[in-house]
């Protein structure tokens, strides 16, 4: 194993070494700092009317186990493409992805879409249980896990509600609980709160951090929001469009747990300013 390698970032021949954090105020779970995802030269091209279009130019990225990494960038920078390739929803035109998932071969990855993508004829509980039902997990076990997860996302009492009876924020919580139901070690989130109002979004950001610290998942989080990226992440990957590529990677050294105090921290505002400038 190539443990404790300094995370390295290569884009378009440019080598950017990212300083490894020596101390963290937030205790990391066991096995933290072990590299979990190794992305090397992954790119995506497709052709429109015979013309080659590059959605993602060759990209290198490493993600450590238990890390919270945000990917931010304007539309068309390939951030969603990268996430979808990782999830197996799209195939890369080349490059390699290595996900070290221990002995859990053929593990299903957790994925949260921008829309909740709930099945409208199933109750909240049945939606959370859906991945377990299709994997033929015993009903009693599936039920108890789904109930725990609904509790984790703060939806106790809404088990029997159909999606149409839930608010946008609640639906997205059900969606998160569903993605966690089969206990994936990697959770990919594609602008999960992009369609929600700001108040709901702030609350869900805090809940996501609490879920992350309780479940110790590795999270890759695609967003349009500078504040969201800075507030949530251990690292922020800034991408730029045409062709989509990684521009800069920021370490976020804000203390955890994060909360209202983080939002008053000058370092937080400095980071947001840096990110904004980078996105210009």
């Amino acid at each position, binding site marked *: 194993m190539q443990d404790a390698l300094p995370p390295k970032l290569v884009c378009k021949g440019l080598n950017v070494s990212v300083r490894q954090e020596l101390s963290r105020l937030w205790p990391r779970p066991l096995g933290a700092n072990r590299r979990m995802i190794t992305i090397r030269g992954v790119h995506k091209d497709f052709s429109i009317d015979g013309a080659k279009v590059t959605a993602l130019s060759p990209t290198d990225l490493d993600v450590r186990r238990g890390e919270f990494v945000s990917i931010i960038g304007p539309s068309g920078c390939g951030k969603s493409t990268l996430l979808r390739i990782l*999830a*197996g*929803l799209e195939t890369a035109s080349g490059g390699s992805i290595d996900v070290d998932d221990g002995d859990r071969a*053929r593990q*299903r*990855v957790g*994925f949260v*879409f921008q*829309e909740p*993508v709930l*099945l*409208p*004829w199933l109750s909240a509980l049945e939606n959370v249980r*859906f*991945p377990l039902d*299709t*994997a033929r997990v015993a009903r009693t076990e599936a039920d108890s896990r789904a109930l725990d997860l609904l509790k984790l996302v703060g939806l106790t009492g809404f088990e029997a509600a*159909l999606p*149409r009876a839930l608010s946008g924020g609640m639906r997205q919580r059900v969606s998160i609980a569903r993605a966690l139901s089969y206990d994936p070690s990697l959770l990919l989130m594609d602008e999960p709160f992009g369609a929600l109002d700001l108040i709901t979004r702030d609350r869900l950001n805090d809940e996501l951090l609490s879920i992350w610290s309780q479940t110790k998942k590795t999270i890759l989080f695609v967003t349009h929001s500078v504040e969201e990226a800075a507030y949530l992440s251990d690292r922020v990957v800034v991408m730029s469009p045409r062709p989509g590529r990684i521009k800069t990677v920021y370490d976020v050294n804000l203390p955890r747990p994060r909360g209202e105090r983080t939002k008053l921290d000058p370092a937080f505002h400095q980071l947001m300013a840096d990110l904004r400038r980078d996105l210009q």
Partner: protein
Amino acid sequence: MTIASILIALRSLAIAVAIWWIVVLVANVPAYLLPAPDAIASRFVFLAQTAELTKHIRVTLGEIGAGFILGGFLGVAFGWLFVRVPLLGRLLSPLILVLQTAPKIAIAPLLLLWLGLDMGPKITLIAIVTFFPVMAGAAAGFAAVERPYQDLGTLLHLNAWQRFRRIELPFSLPPIFAGLRIASTQAVTAAVIGELMGATYGLGYLLSLGQENGDASVVIVAILVLSTIGWGFHELIRAGERHILSWHASQIGLEARV
């Protein structure tokens, strides 16, 4: 259906029967053209007692049931195939267009020639008229399953059957039911046409028997039984739709609209 709406329907029915009766009495209409309601009722009782009527009803119902299930099943299966295998859709769509524009009823004599006077040709005809609206609805439904839901199936490693059964079919049920409802009325018509052209039993056969014997009351009894079957069949499908699609927006507030 609420008790109040049944009462309203019964009242309308009673008024219609009363007008009929009055017209027959006042205008002195000959019985071989339009018998009075009481003559129809006694003919109905007579036919029912000789057990001939139940046999006719059983045959017609059996044909409708078998043909409808066969046509509905094939309609859903082909609707799915045409969406999932676009090449097949492109190859077969001209053929289907020709079949769909031809009056299906016109096939009936051919079916009788090929399959005889038994239930076979009627079941086939009913299956054909059921197939088209169900297939059209199913294809529209399957084509409209949104991309993220297909992605969900991929993420969860669902196999083709699970995708169909757990995601695609439930999403497509509203247009499939719309097709089934259209098909339900056509199925009854197809059964009658098939039986009129040649049969030994069935309500369509009863119609032609009444005509041959110059007995309008037999014809009217058959018509009334047929319309009751058509209505009951349609209601059965509506009830199934309401039950299965209770989650769907089309079913909300439906009771208020009557």
